[in-house]
């Protein structure tokens, strides 16, 4: 097995060698290459980027802008002007709703949001709709978590200005047909905002092929430190959008009456930026590229199938979403009859298995499917067969531990 496809590079597993960490959809662990890159930046290149006229600040700026170039190549954007660094996908989506909304959404317009969206891709749109006097409506999926292009076509009206949907839902793990959806949206004069928080770390994404107008993701879900995220937007779109946050380093000139704003992407990066985080994200991208998405996708699919096929055979375990393992992309959300998800997570923790429980920040979806909360296991390429086996063993022992006969 490829050395990079193991836990060997992840120091957290030196401290917790037997931990089956299966909460990668919440955040991934960090390889030493990323930690070292951040450390090196602060030891050797740190100054306030984009400002100073001295050597060290130039080095900091270069480190920061190199990271931007790595992100550009990673997602296939045309220009680094299209890559805006933010804190995380949530901030990116707030930027999108706030800034895009002000320009493109007026009273009486409509915003369409997929019902399975994470709160971070729902609340900003709700806020926008309220602020602009627009209508918000929701696109429903099937019980299997499937969204069809036909259903989208029906839901779009001449007034729909924005459609927001994740490429992969953090509950279903299913890949949505963004490319086809983008075509339908553009035909209707609708912009497509895509949450890539769960997709960009796990499958190869090329923004030009995808066709989304905006794509956002978080660094911390793809091996990078917390506090660095990305908003990709088509340049001509970003140019039309007003700044989100205002302040330092995003202006050209400021007078007592106002300001002219800096060029893209700096217009959207007010204040001192997270250069260390960006450098860490750059190192994470190098790490991922070295393994290659072909290998990542194959390995994660293998592990998903290994868990899924065994879970399917346990009569009291119910999997949310598709009945096919390949439609789960490393995310398996489930319930266990008679055991509350919080008890599932607590009991699994006792066995050294880390899973998430609750509504996974997708409360409207849980209402929609009529289940108040669920448990979720989510994989990354560095997980292994032992992690899955530990999880399955813990899963099979749950009901006995709660006092049931089996």
């Amino acid at each position, binding site marked *: 097995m490829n050395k990079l496809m193991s836990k060997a590079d992840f120091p957290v597993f030196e401290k917790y060698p037997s931990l089956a960490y299966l909460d990668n959809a919440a955040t991934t662990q960090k390889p030493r290459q990323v930690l070292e890159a951040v450390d090196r930046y602060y030891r050797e290149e740190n100054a306030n980027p984009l400002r100073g006229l001295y050597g060290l600040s130039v080095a900091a700026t270069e480190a920061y802008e190199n990271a931007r170039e790595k992100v550009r190549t990673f997602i296939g954007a045309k220009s680094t002007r299209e890559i805006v660094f933010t804190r995380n996908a949530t901030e990116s989506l707030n930027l999108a709703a706030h800034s895009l909304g002000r320009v493109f959404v007026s009273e009486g317009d409509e915003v369409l949001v997929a019902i399975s969206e994470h709160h971070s891709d729902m609340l900003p749109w709700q806020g926008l709709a309220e602020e602009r006097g627009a209508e918000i409506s929701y696109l429903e999926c099937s019980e299997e978590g499937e969204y069809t292009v036909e259903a989208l076509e029906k839901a779009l009206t001449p007034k729909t200005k924005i459609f927001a949907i994740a490429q992969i839902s953090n509950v279903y793990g299913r890949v949505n047909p963004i490319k086809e959806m983008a075509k339908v949206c553009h035909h209707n004069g609708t912009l497509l905002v895509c949450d890539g928080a769960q997709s960009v770390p796990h499958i190869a994404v090329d923004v030009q092929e995808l066709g989304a107008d905006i794509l956002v993701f978080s660094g911390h879900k793809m091996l990078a430190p917390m506090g660095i995220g990305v908003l990709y937007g088509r340049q001509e779109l970003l140019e039309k959008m007003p700044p989100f946050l205002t302040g330092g380093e995003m202006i050209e000139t400021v007078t007592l009456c106002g300001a002219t704003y800096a060029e893209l992407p700096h217009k959207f990066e007010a204040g001192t930026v997270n250069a260390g985080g960006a450098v860490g994200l750059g190192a994470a991208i190098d790490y991922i590229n070295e393994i290659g998405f072909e290998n990542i996708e194959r390995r994660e699919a293998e592990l998903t199938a290994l868990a899924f096929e065994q879970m399917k055979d346990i009569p009291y375990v119910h999997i949310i979403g598709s009945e096919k393992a390949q439609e789960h992309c490393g995310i398996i959300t489930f319930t266990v009859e008679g*055991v*509350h*998800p*919080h*008890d599932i997570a*607590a*009991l699994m*923790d*006792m066995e050294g298995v880390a899973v998430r429980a*609750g*509504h996974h920040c997708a409360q409207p979806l*849980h209402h929609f499917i009529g289940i*108040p*909360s669920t448990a979720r296991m989510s994989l990354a390429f560095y997980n292994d067969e032992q992690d899955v086996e530990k999880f399955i063993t813990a899963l099979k022992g749950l009901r006995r*531990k*709660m*006092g*049931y006969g089996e």
Partner: protein
Amino acid sequence: MENELYGQVLLDHNMHPFHKHELEGATCSHEGINPSCGDDIVLKLTVKDGVVTDGAFQGSGCAISQASADIMLELVIGRSVEEALHLKDLFSKMIEGTITDEELEELDEAGALQNVSHMPARVKCAMLGWRTLETLLKEDE
């Protein structure tokens, strides 16, 4: 630590809650919710002349929230409102980790939830019933 938490007392009250049912003739009721967990209970009490003569709960939630509510009702039924509120204070002290051994004895089976004090994520599950009880009794006053 958690092994001790999911002990026999808690499991019994979760699997076979004695006080989880509809309550005819209740004089007051209140819904308690932990929005982030989805724990949701409706607590009903019959309070006569300052005494909790009967009580029951319904709803859904994790084993900690359900067992805690059931144990609570076991403790407070037959007590005065003041005594019930006193027990609530003791329970809070236990969860905060400031309870004395003597006070712990007063809590009887509720002492089975003592280990929750080491598990911040589960505190609100254990407190749900008691929090709802306090609101109910103070509103009823």
